[in-house]
Every structure is written in structure tokens, then in C-alpha cells.
């Protein structure tokens, strides 16, 4: 795998991660409660920043943790069966996202465990400090692990084959790209946009985002399968003749 294709895979995996909506939902809800409680604008901005920082740090930790496990177990020589399994999971999650990501009905209710959704709902309501918002950001990623797990594992498989400098660069690229929607929503809230406009946009585009995320996972799974499994097998067969 060349450096360019490695970075391209990391970039696409991060874009897919970015199209998942739980952290944006929690940020919208937390901001709504804070504005409704007449929180000062400067404090609201600190809370929004704390939340985004929490999500970004947890993303970095998850990617790094996954890459560390892969390095420890396989020492950067990824067996073909692991590539094949990861591609299978990517395709499976892609189809699941197409089918299940949003619950039927109005709004942007996600297909995550309802107890987890209630916990995030309650926590976003009771968050009053930026440190609490940071903690909320950290915990939000866990609720969506079912969906973001596949792009994170793929990114770690690609990362461990890069040089240490590019490994760090890859983690930063992944974190920056996957946090983009939060940064945009945070900037909109900070600049005084109405939450109802943000939520209305999210609701009217939810099926597009769902389709884009599912398709992205399928495309990525098929591409990596061809690149890492089929081409390697064909090369081995041709070389053996």
C-alpha cells in the first residue's frame, strides 16, 4: 500500500466517521439546554469547545488504542484474514447503516440503545461546566462505537504500516476530519445561529447522510478487499506459476 492510498483510506474513513450524527445531536441538545437556561455566551462557547475537545481526544485515544493492539498482536504484518474480516465488517456495518441508522419517525432519533440515549439526554441537560461538557464529549463516542468501530479499526490497520511520523499525521488527519461537523455546528452556535435551523437542516438531510455513510463504508470495504486480499492473492498465484 502506497503512502498516498494509505492517507486516502484514512481520509475516507474519517469522512465516514464524520457523517455519523450522535456527537452533533448531543452538542445540539447540550447547547439548547444551556441557551434555554440563559447561560452566558462566553460560558456557552467554553462548553461547546470542551465538548468538541472531549470528542476529539477520545477519537485520538480510540484510534491509538486500536493501532497499539494491532501492533502488539501482529507487529505491523497484518494477516490477510484480518483484512478480509475488517472488509466484511465494513460492508456489514454499511448495510446496517443503510437499513437501521435512524429510527423511523420524525426527528433524528438514532438506533442506539435507549438507555444510553437517555443517559446522554440527561447528562446534556445537567451539564453546566466546560469540564462536564468535556466528559460528555468523551462518553458520547462510546455510545456510537457500534458504527464508528469499523472505520477506526481499518484506520489502525493502515496506520501501523506507516512510518512513526506518518502514524502521528494519520491520527491527526483522522481526528481533524472526523471532528469537522462538530466544529461547523460549534461555529454556527457560537455565531448566534438558531438551533432550530441547525436541527431542521439535520432532519431534512438525515437520509442523505445515512445513505452517504452506508455507501462510504461499502465502497471502502470493497476497495480495501480488492487492494489487500484479491490483488495479493493474484500476485502470489502469478508469482508461483
Amino acid at each position, binding site marked *: 500500500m502506497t503512502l498516498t492510498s494509505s492517507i486516502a483510506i484514512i481520509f475516507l474513513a474519517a469522512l465516514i466517521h464524520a457523517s455519523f450524527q450522535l456527537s452533533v445531536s448531543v452538542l445540539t441538545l447540550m447547547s439548547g439546554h444551556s*441557551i*434555554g437556561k440563559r447561560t452566558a455566551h462566553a460560558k456557552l462557547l467554553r462548553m461547546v469547545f470542551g465538548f468538541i475537545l472531549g470528542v476529539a481526544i477520545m477519537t485520538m485515544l480510540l484510534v491509538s488504542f486500536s493501532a497499539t493492539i494491532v501492533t502488539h498482536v501482529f507487529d505491523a504484518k497484518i494477516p490477510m484474514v484480518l483484512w478480509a474480516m475488517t472488509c466484511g465488517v465494513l460492508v456489514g456495518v454499511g448495510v446496517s447503516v443503510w437499513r437501521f441508522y435512524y429510527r423511523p419517525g420524525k*426527528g433524528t432519533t438514532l438506533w442506539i440503545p435507549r438507555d444510553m440515549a437517555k443517559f446522554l439526554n440527561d447528562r446534556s441537560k445537567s451539564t453546566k461546566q466546560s469540564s462536564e461538557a468535556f466528559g460528555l464529549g468523551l462518553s458520547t463516542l462510546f455510545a456510537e462505537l457500534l458504527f464508528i468501530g469499523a472505520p477506526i479499526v481499518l484506520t489502525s490497520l493502515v496506520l501501523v504500516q506507516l512510518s512513526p511520523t506518518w502514524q502521528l499525521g494519520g491520527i491527526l488527519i483522522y481526528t481533524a476530519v472526523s471532528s469537522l461537523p462538530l466544529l461547523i455546528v460549534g461555529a454556527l452556535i457560537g455565531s448566534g445561529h*438558531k438551533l432550530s435551523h441547525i436541527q431542521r437542516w439535520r432532519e431534512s438531510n438525515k437520509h442523505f447522510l445515512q445513505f452517504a455513510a452506508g455507501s462510504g463504508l461499502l465502497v471502502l470495504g470493497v476497495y480495501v478487499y480488492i487492494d489487500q486480499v484479491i490483488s495479493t492473492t493474484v500476485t502470489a498465484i502469478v508469482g508461483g506459476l
Partner: protein
Amino acid sequence: MPTTHSKAIDIVKRSGKRPTEPFNADKLHASIQASCLSVRSPDGEAHGIALAVTDAVIVWLETKPEVTSHDIRRIASHHLKKFHPEAAYLYEQHKHII
């Protein structure tokens, strides 16, 4: 503050798991006001709208011995829409964001 109503009305909670509780006009007022503030309404306007919507819900409740919290939300949202459609949208969406 909203008009106090004399008749005690039980509110059946949404999931049915939590016990019923008496209708609390202040609680409704606060949630309507918070929705208005969330869409950047000025304080005075938010208070006035919340007062009007709460009064309308109290009038609707006069003939009901028992209602669900969902009913309260639906009726409040219906009246809020007349005063502030954006706030009504956010009020309706509250339970459907995550």
C-alpha cells in the same frame, strides 16, 4: 407566573413506568420559556409566550380528569406554534434529537 388553576389533574408519564404526578403549571411554563430562549427569543417575549401557552393548556385541561405528558406536550406545541413556530419546532423535537 402562569394562572393558577384550582382543579388537580394527574399527568400520566410517557413510558408509564414512573408514577403519575399532579399537573405543574410552573414546570410547563419553564419548559416553554426555555424553548423560546433556545431559539434566541428575548427574555420578555419568551416569558409572555410561555404565559399565554400555559394559560391555553390550563383551559384545555379544565375538562380532563387525567392526561398523559405526551398530550400536554402536543397541546402546548399546538399553541406555541401560533406564537413562535421555531420554538414550537424545537419543543416538538426535544425528545427526538438523540
